[in-house]
């Protein structure tokens, strides 16, 4: 477990023990307010994907801003367990639950909360139904429809319709609607490609409705495209997560949202001219798919990250840098970075306001 030196509340960010994960409360609330107020004027509502930050305390702040549909989304059933234990009564689990252990846990959770699962196969649906009915609970089901850049989900609309019919027939499952399979945020995707990707989903919706079955929820989208998708007729739910904290990956699409999450490190060595070594490497920045951005020295350049070090070239930096100075990094993928820390240092006006638990960190199951 992370073992930082806990500083007194009110300490300046520069005094914090490093590496640490910071969340700037004003930037966080500004992002949440901006995105949620957008949804206030749309038929579609946001269901915050809180599996990105894994922190119930942050999720509670998000839910204070209207524009959401009352629920949250997470990736795994063990994350759902954490959020339900922290009072979130309506939880969508986007990852597939295919083993008896996971389905049993979802059914236990369904005894005291509304659990929605995603399904793309008849065999899985049968397992969910059998276990849920034997436990005397009902799981809400979204049938997952494949997307052009995704990899799971149903691609045959007739198969989707058959699945929906089975959901309505079976005990223990309740047909809630459709969800577009997750597709990773990729650089350079155009607006019309985003809209086109929804077509299979909307076609299946029409097919099901033409068979007399109401489709209550039609879910799609992410931080990179929430503003485009929320306006599409027929979509009524967007599951976005990174918008609240933001990261380098999503800033290409949502440049007006503020960087609210930062990793702070300390310069530990200045071994030669033009090079500094910091204490925040891969284990704290998480460069699984991209490098972080140095926020306080925009002219500095990351040479490379190793597990516990960052090598930074400072030849273009005008201001002098000393041993002990702080480095602020914007994560490349905040979903990776938040999962590396047990604590979030919540900052307001440059001072430590409170320390939050990243309760669902490490909950991959």
């Amino acid at each position, binding site marked *: 477990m992370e*073992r930082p030196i806990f500083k007194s509340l009110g300490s300046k960010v520069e005094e914090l023990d490093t590496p640490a994960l910071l969340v700037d409360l004003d930037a966080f609330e500004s992002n949440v307010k901006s995105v949620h107020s957008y949804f206030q004027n749309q038929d579609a509502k946001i269901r915050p994907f809180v599996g990105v930050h894994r922190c119930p305390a942050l999720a509670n702040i998000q839910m204070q801003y209207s524009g959401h549909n009352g629920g949250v989304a997470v990736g795994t059933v063990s994350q759902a367990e954490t959020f339900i234990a922290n009072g979130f009564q309506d939880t969508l689990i986007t990852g597939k639950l295919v083993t008896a252990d996971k389905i049993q846990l979802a059914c236990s959770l369904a005894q005291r909360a509304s659990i929605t699962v995603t399904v793309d196969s008849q065999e899985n649906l049968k397992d969910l139904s059998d276990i849920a009915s034997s436990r005397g609970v009902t799981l809400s089901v979204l049938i997952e429809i494949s997307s052009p850049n995704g990899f799971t989900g149903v691609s045959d609309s007739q198969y989707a319709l058959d699945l929906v019919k089975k959901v309505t027939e079976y005990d223990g499952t309740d047909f809630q609607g459709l969800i577009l399979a997750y597709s*990773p945020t990729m650089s350079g995707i155009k607006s019309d490609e985003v809209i086109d990707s929804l077509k299979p989903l909307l076609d299946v919706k029409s097919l099901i409705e033409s068979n007399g079955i109401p489709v209550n929820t039609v879910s799609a989208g992410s931080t990179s495209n929430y503003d485009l998708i929320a306006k599409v007729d027929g979509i009524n739910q967007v599951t976005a997560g990174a918008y609240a904290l933001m990261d380098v990956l999503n800033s290409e699409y949502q440049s007006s949202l503020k960087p609210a999450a930062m990793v702070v490190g*300390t310069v530990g060595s200045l071994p030669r001219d033009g090079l500094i070594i910091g204490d925040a490497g891969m284990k704290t920045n998480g460069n699984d798919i991209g490098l972080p951005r140095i926020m306080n020295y925009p002219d500095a350049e990351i040479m490379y990250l190793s*597990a516990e070090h960052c090598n930074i070239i400072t030849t273009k930096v005008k201001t002098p840098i000393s041993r002990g100075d702080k480095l602020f990094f914007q994560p490349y993928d905040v979903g990776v970075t938040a999962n590396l820390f047990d604590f979030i240092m919540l900052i307001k006006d440059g001072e430590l306001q409170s320390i939050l638990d990243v309760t669902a960190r490490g909950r991959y*199951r």
Partner: protein
Amino acid sequence: MDHYRPSVGTKISELDTPCLILDLDALDHNFDRMSETFKDTKVKLREHTKNIKSPALAHMQIRKGGTVGGVCSAKVAEAEVMVEGGIASVLIPNQVVTEDKIKRLCVLAGRADVTVCVDSEENVRDISRIASNLNVKVGIAIEVDTNMDRAGVRSVEQGVHIASVANQLSGLNFRGVMSHSAMFGVPKDDEFKNDEAIKYYKKTVELADAIRAKGIEFDMVSSGETFSYDMAPFVDGITEVEGGMYALMSTMLSYMDGHFKYAAKILGTVVSQPKSNLAVGDIGYRSIASSLNTDDPFLEGYDEVEFTSMHDEACLLTSKGEMPLTVGDKFMLRCPQQDLTVNRYDNYIAVRNGLVEQVISIPGRGCHN
């Protein structure tokens, strides 16, 4: 935090996933290999705990023999975990520069044999001042850069100067010299790898000799890593090797798999089969960890299946013909860089002969400070 602790005797096929598997036979092999290499040599192993993050595993290697009886730890917090877990000697091959963290280091030095690495006079003076105030002695080693262009002194003169300062100040025990080297990419052959290893060892010894020539005595010349471990006995003057990745192994060191076995793996489950030749697994980069410098994980046991791509919470497996894996089946991935992976888990599910033998906590997880 994840609290998954399956019962002893659970079959691997029945485990909940993704979880971190520790193959105990492979681990024993790797620990034995090190103890056999170093049991009769002057140079000994000082295992790096950044890779295992567990005092229990560190004790296993120490009990096997061939070690200095202590470990290396990347950070002060990790060193604390090791000392609390009963390890008596810790080298921190890293700089500790802030006032509060130096205090924390000094308190630890009051409880165990603790040495920290420095590359500046200013840092040495800070540590001396704080250690003297707290009435403890902190071990000091000079870090020398060999090939990483990372921390460490860049010249023998600079190293000798800092050593002379450290040797005279109160609150310090001057212990010697430390270096860390990297093999970037895959070496073209063993000869090249071994030549590189010897070159970096000699650079470290060069500084040690120059400091000794000034009449300063010390006992530690600490260097080396998994790729270079077996060359250390051939270089006079190296006292200890800081290998870490050997214990659990990574595909980035696949060129060392004649020496060490893959002991840490991530177990996953196939959750969807959208096409007959495609399986989607529940392991993504968030749960196995990747970096820009490493290749994809390696799928064990299925020659005809290719690991195609990895996403945040999923991976794709593609087969040439019929996919042998179906929904619900388990599969095992070797880690690209295992220290990043272990740092994302709270427990090892330790297995032997296909059954859970033990669940071992990872108290050093997240000890970045």
